[in-house]
């Protein structure tokens, strides 16, 4: 467990390393990586039961990155945690690298299931949660979705199934940064009212500021107490969070920062 101050300090470092890796790779998805960073840090440092030296530990909590394009942020977090050497971050998206453009469970320690084709994570997470229940295990399954990803019908197939099976060991987080590739989510294909949608599917819904560590920690604590239904945390976030010229800019969804932009970004992250 880390203090909020420590988490905030760490988050600046993770954001910097994430951008460095994307810039070096020359392609990737910085916007959604930065919006998800604080959620990932909260989970890996203060919420989940896991052991980087033993990624297959049967009693671990599981994390599934359904919005696979935020892989660089997850890789940085996993490297910081010690799942693999930090040096690997320099090889993001390289030919045959351990760190593929999108999460690959067959190559990267700490990745439970491959993702990249949107909409699958919550459904797979539900299957894992079901298996854990069958085995009488107390582990939980955490699944991070993008808000644009909620356009996928499969997300709602899983949402229906998870409540039907009373999967209270399943906790979804929606990274509600409001932007997808073609523009604001509400202009592309409106998701609102998104909290009411999840409530209508009979989920326990918690809304938080996805960059406020106190709120995130409290939300996960509350989710752990809920019995009989799954919880979804709608985390209001800012795409590109932490770097002023990237914040709320649609273009940084899938465009890497240039070396010059990286320099400016790093100055800002280090100055905070």
């Amino acid at each position, binding site marked *: 467990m880390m203090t909020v101050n420590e988490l905030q300090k760490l988050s600046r470092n993770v954001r910097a390393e994430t951008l460095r890796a994307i810039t070096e790779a020359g392609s990737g998805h910085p916007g959604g990586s930065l919006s998800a960073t604080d959620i990932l840090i909260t989970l890996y440092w203060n919420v989940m039961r896991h052991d980087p030296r033993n990624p297959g530990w049967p009693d671990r909590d599981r994390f599934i990155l359904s919005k696979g394009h935020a892989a660089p942020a997850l890789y940085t977090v996993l490297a910081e945690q010690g799942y693999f050497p930090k040096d690997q971050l320099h090889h993001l998206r390289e030919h045959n690298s351990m760190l593929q453009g999108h999460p690959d469970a*067959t190559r990267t320690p700490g990745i439970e*299931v491959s993702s990249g084709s949107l909409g*699958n994570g919550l*459904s*797979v997470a*539900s*299957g894992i949660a079901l*298996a854990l229940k069958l*085995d009488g295990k107390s582990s939980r399954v955490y699944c991070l979705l993008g808000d644009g990803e909620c356009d996928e*019908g499969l997300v709602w197939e899983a949402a229906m199934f998870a409540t039907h099976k009373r999967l209270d060991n399943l906790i979804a987080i929606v990274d509600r940064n409001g932007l997808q590739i073609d523009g604001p989510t509400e202009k592309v294909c409106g998701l609102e009212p998104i909290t009411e949608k999840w409530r209508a599917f009979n989920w326990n819904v918690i809304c938080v500021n996805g960059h406020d560590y106190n709120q995130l920690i409290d939300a996960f604590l509350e989710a752990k107490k809920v019995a009989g239904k799954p919880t979804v945390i709608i985390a209001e976030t800012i795409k590109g969070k932490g770097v002023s010229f990237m914040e709320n800019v649609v273009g940084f969804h899938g465009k890497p920062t240039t070396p010059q932009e990286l320099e400016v970004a790093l100055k800002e992250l280090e100055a905070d």
Partner: protein
Amino acid sequence: MSMKATRDAYGEWLVEAGKINKDIVVVDADLAESTKTILFAKAYPERFFDVGTAEQNLVDIAAGLAIGGKRAFASSFAYFLTGRAWDQIRNIVAHDNLNVCLVASHGGFSATSDGASHLAFQDIALMRVIPNMRVVIPVDAEETKSVLDAALKEGGPFYIRLRRDKEPILQKPYQFKLGKAETMKDGSDVAFVSSGAMVDTTLRAAALLKDRGVDARVLNVHTVKPIDGDALVLAARATGSVITVEDHSVYGGLGGAVAEILSESYPVPVHRVGVPDVYGSSSRSVDALLKEFNLMPDQLVESAERVIQKKRN
């Protein structure tokens, strides 16, 4: 000759296997009565999950169960399973090499009266192109159980294509072995290569040919992937001409696979009989559809004679 549907054999096998192996779980998408997973559901309700009419969820739930250490069997009709959930099969089940057996009922001409939406003529092509996927079409109800035994033992992703109707249990001069094509009848003039329900049809065609003095070999390629290239070359070498017969599109299925192998390894005239580039349509009789696509034994005799002629030219 005793008759039994391959899907019935599947339901029975699940109950038997589920008794011994407690890790076996079954997922269905609102078709448990038709796919026969209902038998498992009744025997072990705590290990059976019905996701409703949601095939993408069907496959991903099975994937999650497999990641959680279970041996998952996911079932639906052949088209819905492969067509509606292709992304989940490609990106999760096969990519991550999970212990998921996709067992489809209503392959080929099983869904004749339902028409184009249900007639699965593309499923083998859809599955064959996916890395790590093994594709098997049991010849009858007996072989179905052997295939399922092998899939459970082997582990990893499988697509097993079954059928609705009662069919004869064939006399087989071999013990089923995954990946090994088997000779049902020896012959030296032409080789029929088929799988599933079409093997019986080709045996009938071979019998008709015998009356006309033509010695036709019949090969059962139950495992379409990984395909037994050696057996195909051996048959081509022995007969000099090959006819593939399938209840599937002539594109991308068994015919395509055989042509790929022989064109590179031992080119001989190959004639592919199956569904041309069209949709199926409703019919009250399977025979009417089979006839439309030249898949009746007497029509196969004509095809055989044509390909033998080609060999001579």
